[in-house]
């Protein structure tokens, strides 16, 4: 109880984000199980995972900070680098390679001028290479944030990307 009060006074997180993190922590039988969900939530909010948010998550879940850092560094989807509003995940696995993923990567490079791991100058998009996204019949395949798309043409790609302001 005391911990809760101290916590509420010192928090640096937004009210809305904090209440969602608490929801996740209350959802599972044990609080520490919510760590991945909380980190997803933080990343969606800030566009990456800032250091202070790690400390907040650690406090909220009652875990040592180094445990949270340990977990963040293990999972591929978590990004502590430069923030970006939207993430484009491109599959670079076997089937997409077979079905000519290079066309898709070339189109993204031409449209946004970024390579893997880079962010556009306005911080709108970040390009990330991932192993199989699990929609191989639709190869070459990519995701923008939580939405999944098949690559058809550069024009179609441009149209899709323009939906993400």
């Amino acid at each position: 109880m005391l911990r809760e009060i101290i916590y509420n006074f010192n928090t640096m997180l937004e009210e809305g984000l904090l209440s969602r993190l608490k929801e996740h922590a209350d959802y599972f039988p044990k609080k520490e199980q919510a760590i991945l969900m909380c980190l997803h939530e933080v990343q969606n909010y800030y566009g990456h995972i800032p250091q202070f948010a790690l400390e907040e998550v650690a406090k909220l879940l009652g875990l040592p900070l180094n445990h949270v850092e340990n977990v963040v560094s293990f999972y591929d989807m978590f990004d502590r680098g430069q923030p970006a509003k939207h993430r484009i995940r491109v599959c670079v696995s076997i089937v997409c390679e077979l079905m000519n993923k290079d066309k898709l990567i070339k189109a993204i490079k031409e449209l946004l001028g970024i390579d893997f791991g880079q962010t556009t100058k306005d911080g709108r998009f970040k390009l990330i290479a991932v192993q199989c996204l699990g929609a191989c019949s639709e190869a070459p395949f990519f995701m923008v944030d939580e939405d999944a798309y098949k690559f058809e043409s550069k024009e179609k790609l441009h149209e899709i990307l323009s939906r993400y302001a």
Partner: protein
Amino acid sequence: MRSYPVMPNIYTETTLDMLLRRAKKPRVHTVEDYLRDGGYQALEKALNMDPQEIIEWVDKSQLRGRGGAGFPTGKKWKFAVQNPAPRYLICNADESEPGTFKDRVLIERDPHLLIEGMIISAYAIGANEAFVYIRGEYPAGYYILRDAIEEAKKKGFLGRNILGSGFDLEIYVARGAGAYICGEESALIESLEGKRGFPRTKPPFPVQYGLFGKPTVVNNVETLCNIPFIIKLGWEDYRYMGPSDYPGPKLFPVSGKVKKPGVYELPMNTTLREVVYKYAGGTINNKKVKAVFSGALDCFSWEELDTPMDYSPFGFGGTGTVIVLTEEDDVVKMCLKVAEFYAHESCGQCTPCRVGTYEQANLLHRIIQGTATEGDWEGFDFVNRFIQPTSICGLGAVAGRLIRQTMKKFPEEWEKYRKLSTESSLSV
């Protein structure tokens, strides 16, 4: 109904009309759709049965785990109930093998089939808490499952005293965050406990020491979706489907150079040739099939197209993933993709796998560039062999397998690259 993230429009076809009965239509099926189609009747029947009897039925049905290893589900449950309660049930929805997308179709389009299967399974093994661990790259599936569980709760299929039977169950959904290794059951359990996904040393197996140290059954999505059919039909009728040793429907995700890639539900006495030519419509531009990769696990050549799609020692096995390569594709270059995949997904816990998979990809890269020396070839051969017996979990054990198989089955392809490296070393 709320709107979900954009989902891929995966083509599906079924000859059995069981697992894909509803999922063949590309939309989310709500609890009303499911009930209209006779849903949750198996649950009612199961709750009137003795849990022991359900386990016996599943054992007699000869259902095998659909996640890749093909371990008999009934046996796994029997091991679990030998250990004291509390027990847990976990649904493994961390489908990340390259070329595999069968579970996604079930989760996104027919979540209630999975939920019904989970309730029956949890009742059978005496678990009051169950978890679904879904991979981070399937956000739509996560939201759909959360909503479906709420729907089921409102109808009284989940929560306290389910349908007046006195049995309580809560299902929790957890998201992964992009680690292939979390599909390995002990790594999944670690991840579900809020830790790094490091596989545990076995034994003890999860049925003895699983989530929070309690006996835990980890089953694949497709396996759990089979359970309502076993209960509804009875194990005898269920076994009429397909070959007698490997009964039941199986989903085959087909991708690569075929005309109709998608998920196919077929009995397991289908041959690989039938899958590629009869169902998937043959290859693009009618090129000759050069090889079929079963995920990143096995490789089959043109001569082996008559392999049955079952779990026998010479069968197709695994998750049923079919990736078709034609004569214009380079097998060795695809091996590089496989090696890169393992190097990327190795969790880094044990040295042979962490260093071995990295070196394997590195050396193969040099081989393809034509800059490999004689020593590199020897090293490649060595690394490729030594990861298998020295690693903790299954990832290391299979990291060199597909590459070794292609060396045996396509020696001429590898010879090309050997010549390339000898030529370049002469010119230096």
